[in-house]
């Protein structure tokens, strides 16, 4: 029979297609066994050798197969796989972190339905893709063991039905009898929540809504009411100001909207050969703040003189403007006069902000800004900020009349902890119908009769209007983990409205928000797109204001009187960047985050300057002297921490610590100082005791200029220059030894040894020290992304914190008022890495893409790499911090002093472990770990590009630290791509340098010289100082 040949496709392929059945069914035979199978099948004579080969192979294969224990997997697959969930692929949802008025627009990364990371949302006009430490850490609160897991009545678990019945009936009867109902909340910036509150008030006409901010901005709001007739915060434009003068306002760290301000501030500080202008920043303050640390000029003054400085500034500028001056403060400081001159020269392009909570002081500041013509230029009223709305008077009245309140409902606040009269307030809660709507257990929930457990924001629907017309949304990224209900829904239920909150919000948007915007044609489009983007900018008509600066003289007199009763020692209460008001002081990521200013963790302490040696601690033994502080009728003990830059006679202590009700005792270190708010902190008594205590400080202060055998020499770890010098020479101060860096690279950087080759990518990072403000958002983001263990206070005291990324802080200049430079420091991924060649087992090695890699399961933990790392960025797992693999499973229960139960500090129990990033190995004890340059993101980015079939685009891969940075100080990319930003910076920008390049480590992380907008870099001037020696 004639064979029929079938063919398909192009000529030349016909031989391949045949209907003959004799061609191999499996195509090619298995290559490895070719020799064996061939000899068996073709000759059909099995030789002795072949037989033995086969026998050997079979026996070995059977042995190997039989000896592998197959684990029983108990995972349950989806019956119906949700369309959007692909195992192994992350989904991102927009949301908004709102804590009182603190607002950051976030993008939440979820894996297999679990939110694991919050990153900045680039589409937000407020936070502009930036983050702050608390926003990044907020995801961990979702998995907190401190969650209020179900509704409670009188401390006993209850059901929503019982709670609703009880609350509704009691509120109705109170309302009917005309009893007072108070709804006490933090600042509410959500329009829909406000509507729900209005509905609630409509149902219970005797209800009153009081808002308060733990750290109050009432003075600023009232001043604006007085001078502009509007109780709101204006729209500060830090990007439009050439000269920023801040009197005690930490606008980069904690003041009103730090992420927004930092982003705007940094825009004007990015110098390049093309742009050689930058803003100038003067900070007048007592306690060193994050803003003060970044200032070009910092004027240290006592807390009382912050007020006097405002009066001095007012008078100096008024005399220049030819306006009436107010009564003099009696305080004289040449630096303040110089600031006034500078301000006058920058008229209309300057910005004066003040952190005072005194209405009269803020009135004067408004007067100053008005005289300088800053309204309309750098301070706008087009979109007033709603981020602070608290009213001190209303709260004071409430506390005084608490006994007459029949029912009190509290949400988004912790009054028992944060009120000056918190204890008294707490006692009153037991005598009335107290209902706490809270997400985690705290001092207030403990005292309240009814706890209506609320959702975490990642389980909730919501909206937020931080600035007039700028509305952000929240959407659930996970079903509620516990039997909780978001508080707006509770209020609606109690108001008799059983509509689910999402429908209620949607309806509100359709009626109230839809008409104010012109971007979308239907309310459904508006809803869908805004939920997706996370923010919508609506039309907004600027309020009509009637400025009134007539009564400045009275304000000045009042302001002066407010600081009249001052003593030799003044106490400043301040807010920490990571801890804030203390609502999040049960978040281990934030507790272990070294404070940007002091580098201390887990607790508060008494900060004072470096002028009095009797307060100095022993820099190496971590023995801090304990002092007894007496403020009015209150006294407490805290260790003293000496911080250069705090003026003599000033002590400072931060809010946020000394919590008494948290998930575990490790979160309760320190002292609560909210009760000092009612005392006169300008006259305090400090007595040194004979006791000492350790503090969990991650950096002890040292000079970069050291006495060595060759006398004093400076370590050029950081490089800084002035703007004038930079204009003359872009490479100014960028020196290595006696050479200019570029000459040194050309002439001195020679080696006999061949280096690595990078055929594909060559990853490099560039960090601009001029933009970095040291806010530490990147540190928390790195912790979250890379499953970095939290080790607890005890271990931090032993200098064993695990952070892959830390922010080094260095001083220059006078120890009473030094200049600060922040330097993010992580693995430098050296191309000639000292760690790599000393590892006996090659557990750390160099990738073909320039990354210094760690193979955790190869590491035996000799720690030689850590010793030999000149940057000291390698971290060793001294214990089994993650409960990953150990004989001793109970590390936390046995090793931490005085704590019977110690879950959650490490990622060592099931609820908290839900935060772990499944793409990153959890390290067991005994191995070294360090920055991997987000290896998992590099891999994911490359795979995306491969799937798309395109070369990897510059900027497509962003590291976790880069994504969190509010000021875009961190750039990352492929150096082999000559179009990339990093390659352009490294090749062309003469500010670029590597840290200690002279030891020939060839780091892949580069830094850019800091440029200060000042006449001269402060000289090193304190060689023999006990604290620093």
């Amino acid at each position: 029979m004639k064979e029929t040949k079938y063919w398909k496709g192009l000529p030349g392929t016909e031989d391949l297609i045949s209907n003959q059945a004799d061609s191999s069914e499996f195509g090619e035979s298995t290559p490895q066994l070719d020799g064996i199978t061939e000899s068996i099948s073709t000759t059909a004579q099995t030789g002795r050798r072949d037989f033995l080969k086969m026998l050997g192979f079979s026996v070995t294969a059977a042995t190997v197969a039989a000896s592998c224990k197959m684990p029983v997997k108990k995972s349950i697959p989806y019956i119906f796989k949700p369309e959007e969930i692909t195992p192994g692929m992350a989904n991102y949802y927009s949301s908004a972190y709102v804590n009182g008025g603190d607002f950051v627009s976030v993008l939440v990364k979820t894996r297999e339905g679990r939110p694991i990371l919050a990153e900045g949302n680039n589409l937000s006009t407020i936070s502009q893709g930036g983050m702050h430490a608390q926003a990044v850490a907020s995801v961990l609160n979702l998995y907190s063991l401190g969650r209020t897991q179900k509704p409670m009545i009188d401390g006993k678990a209850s059901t929503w039905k019982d709670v609703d019945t009880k609350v509704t009936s009691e509120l109705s009867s109170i309302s009917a009898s005309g009893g007072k109902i108070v709804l006490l909340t933090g600042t509410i910036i959500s329009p829909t929540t406000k509507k729900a509150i209005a509905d609630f008030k409509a149902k219970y006409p005797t209800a009153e809504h009081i808002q308060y901010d733990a750290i109050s901005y009432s003075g600023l709001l009232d001043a604006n009411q007085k001078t502009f007739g509007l109780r709101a915060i204006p729209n500060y434009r830090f990007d439009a100001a050439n000269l920023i003068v801040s009197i005690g306002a930490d606008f980069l760290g904690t003041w009103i909207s730090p992420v927004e301000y930092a982003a705007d501030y940094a825009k004007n500080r990015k110098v390049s050969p093309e742009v050689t202008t930058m803003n100038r920043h003067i900070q007048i303050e007592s306690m060193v703040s994050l803003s003060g640390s970044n200032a070009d000029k910092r004027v240290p003054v006592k807390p009382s003189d912050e007020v006097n400085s405002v009066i001095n500034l007012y008078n100096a500028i008024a005399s220049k403007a030819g306006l009436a001056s107010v009564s003099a403060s009696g305080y004289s400081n040449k630096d303040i006069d110089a600031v006034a001159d500078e301000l006058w020269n920058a008229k209309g392009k300057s910005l004066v902000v003040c952190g005072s909570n005194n209405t009269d002081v803020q009135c004067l500041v408004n007067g100053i800004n008005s005289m300088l013509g800053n309204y309309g230029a750098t301070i706008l009223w087009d979109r007033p900020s709603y981020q602070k709305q608290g009213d001190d008077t209303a709260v004071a009245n409430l506390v005084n009349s608490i006994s007459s309140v029949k029912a009190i409902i509290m949400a988004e606040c912790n009054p028992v902890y944060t009120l000056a009269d918190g204890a008294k307030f707490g006692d009153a809660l037991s005598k009335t119908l107290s209902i706490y709507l809270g997400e985690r257990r705290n001092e207030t929930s403990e005292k309240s009769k009814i706890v209506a457990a609320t959702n975490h924001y990642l389980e909730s629907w919501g909206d937020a209007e931080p600035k007039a017309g700028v509305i952000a949304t929240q959407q659930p990224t996970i079903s509620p983990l516990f039997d909780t209900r978001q508080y707006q829904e509770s209020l609606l239920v109690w108001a008799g409205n059983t509509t689910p909150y999402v429908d209620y919000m949607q309806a509100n948007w359709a009626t109230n928000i839809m008409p104010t915007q012109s971007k979308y044609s239907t309310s459904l489009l508006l809803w869908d797109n805004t939920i997706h983007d996370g923010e919508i900018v609506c039309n907004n008509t600027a309020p009509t204001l009637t400025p009134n600066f007539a009564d400045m003289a009275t304000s000045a007199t009042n302001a002066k009187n407010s600081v009249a009763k001052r003593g030799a020692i003044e106490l400043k209460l301040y807010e920490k960047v990571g801890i804030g008001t203390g609502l999040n002081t049960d978040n281990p990521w934030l507790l272990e985050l070294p404070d940007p200013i002091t580098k201390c963790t887990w607790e508060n302490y008494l900060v004072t300057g470096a002028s009095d040696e009797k307060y100095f601690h022993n820099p190496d033994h971590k023995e801090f002297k304990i002092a007894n502080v007496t403020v009015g009728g209150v006294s407490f003990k805290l260790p003293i921490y000496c911080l250069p830059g705090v003026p003599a006679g000033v002590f400072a202590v931060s809010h946020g610590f000394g919590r008494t009700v948290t998930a575990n005792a490790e979160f309760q270190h320190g002292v609560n100082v909210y009760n000092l708010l009612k005392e006169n902190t300008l006259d305090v008594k400090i007595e040194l005791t004979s006791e000492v205590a350790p503090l969990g400080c991650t950096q002890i202060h040292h000079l970069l200029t050291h006495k060595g055998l060759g006398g004093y020499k400076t370590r050029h770890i950081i490089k800084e220059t002035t703007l004038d010098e930079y204009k003359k020479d872009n490479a100014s101060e960028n020196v290595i030894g006696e050479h200019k860096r570029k000459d040194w690279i050309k002439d001195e950087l020679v080696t006999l040894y061949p280096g690595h080759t990078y055929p594909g990518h060559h990853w490099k990072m560039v960090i601009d020290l001029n933009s970095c403000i040291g806010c530490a958002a990147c540190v928390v983001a790195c912790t979250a992304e890379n499953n970095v263990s939290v080790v607890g206070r005890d271990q931090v005291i032993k200098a064993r914190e695990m952070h892959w990324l830390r922010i080094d802080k260095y001083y220059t200049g006078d120890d009473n008022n030094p200049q600060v430079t922040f330097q993010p420091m992580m693995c430098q991924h050296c191309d000639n890495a000292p760690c790599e060649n000393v590892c006996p087992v090659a557990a750390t090695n160099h990738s073909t893409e320039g990354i210094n890699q760690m193979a955790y399961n190869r590491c035996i933990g000799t720690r030689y790499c850590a010793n030999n790392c000149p940057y000291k960025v390698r971290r060793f797992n001294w214990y089994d911090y993650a409960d990953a693999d150990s004989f001793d499973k109970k590390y936390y229960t046995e090793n931490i002093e005085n704590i019977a139960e110690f879950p959650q500090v490490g990622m060592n129990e099931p609820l908290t472990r839900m935060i772990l990033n499944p793409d990153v190995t959890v390290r067991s004890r005994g191995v070294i770990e360090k920055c991997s340059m987000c290896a998992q993101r590099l891999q994911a980015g490359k795979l995306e590009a491969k799937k798309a079939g395109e070369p990897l685009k510059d900027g497509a891969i962003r590291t976790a630290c880069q994504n969190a940075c509010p000021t875009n100080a961190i750039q990352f990319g492929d150096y082999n791509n000559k179009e990339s930003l990093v390659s352009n910076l490294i090749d062309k920008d003469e500010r670029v340098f590597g840290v200690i390049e002279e030891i020939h480590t060839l780091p892949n992380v580069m830094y850019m010289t800091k440029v200060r907008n000042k006449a001269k870099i402060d000289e090193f001037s304190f060689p023999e100082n006990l604290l620093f020696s």
Partner: protein
Amino acid sequence: MNPYESPIREALINGEDTTYGKITDDIVRNTEGTPPKSWMIAFALASITALFGVFCLGYTVWKGIGVWGLNKTVDWAWDITNFVWWIGIGHAGTLISAVLLLFRQKWRTGINRAAEAMTIFAVVCAGLFPVFHMGRVWMAFFIFPYPNTRGPLWVNFNSPLLWDVFAISTYFTVSVLFWYSGLMPDFATIRDRAKTARRKMIYNVLSFGWIGSAKQWQRFESLSLVLAGLSTPLVLSVHTIVSFDFATSVVPGWHTTIFPPYFVAGAIFSGFAMVQTLMLITRKLFSLQNYITVAHLESMNKVIVLTGSIVGVAYITELVIAWYSGYLYEQYAFYNRALGPYKWAYISMMTCNVISPQVFWFKKIRRSVFYSFLLSIFVNIGMWFERFVIIVTSLHRDFLPSSWNYFTPTWVDAGLYIGTIGIFFTLFLLFARTFPVIAIAEVKSIFSTSAVSAKKKMADPQDFSDVHSHSHDHGHGAHAVVHHDKNFNEQ
């Protein structure tokens, strides 16, 4: 060995009535009968300490390295200090047996056995630290280059830690061989005196059936020479390689080219001091004053003052070179070493190592048992501090001041150190009780020339020929001399 020795030269075997038989009696007696009470007490103390050390090891493995005082900046401290200290102590044994053998120093015969034993026990103690300082000690086998299914994944031959593995294992092997081969004839002596069948059998096995034939003696001597030749370079190499652990790094204070000779000199220094300590205890405990004489002490003390001075020169050289380098990190490292927060350690090191041994320039002190013992303890302490100073003061403040830290040890750190001292003494006391603590055959080899009794006979011409006949036909041998004396194995 030179058959004739000037009667003026100080005798190395004391005792007017010492004979070959008495030597055997005096030395072997310690392995027979009930041990003295002093031994019992010493052994009880040592073994309790050793058990505590074992407990600390277990505790470390169970809990994690976190039970030590280390931190993110100082990743090595007492662990590697103890390692280098023990390895250094282990140096004297080889030096005494091999180098002094090649240089034909007769005084080595009285101390070489114990010194070699000390070497082995010191290396055992030293070896514990690099193993147990690992974070994952159960993965310690990764450091051996063996074929595996992981790629195969090989060790990193660039790492000085790997060189350590080879250097120390080689040193240990050769030391054990050297020690054991020297023991064989003496085991036979014990066997021949044994009164019970079991004891006879055990020592017969230990002696590998030694019968003392001429051929055996000839092979024995060849082996000794070969091993001496092999060991001599090891004396230099082991501590050179240990010094590479530091010298090949970038850490200021470690990265110095002077380290190999400096470490070797320091090792001999500390080794001799430890031998001195042990000898003084042993001679007292087992009444061996006749064989470990003041002449021995003096010779040892001479080596101690020489090596101590070398070490002192090295310390000063380091400082001068750091100053001269103009390199600020190194300048600071050495400034900080001498005047920083650990200056107490530097002062202890300088006092114990450089200043205190200088008193040995005085003959009276050099020959004083009390001062020899006191100073040997000083040197042991000083050399421990030397390693501590090098390791900890260099690490605790290196390049970036932001990471500077302070190391404070914990009870586990101390327990491990004391524990290894316990392990060392337990092993040494067991050795002293069961093995001949002085090389019987070797001491006898110098009896005819260097014993007081022999010298006395030499002075008396009548007896001269009798004594001399023992060794006249062995002019070629540098080592143990073949004794045809019929009394040799019997007495």
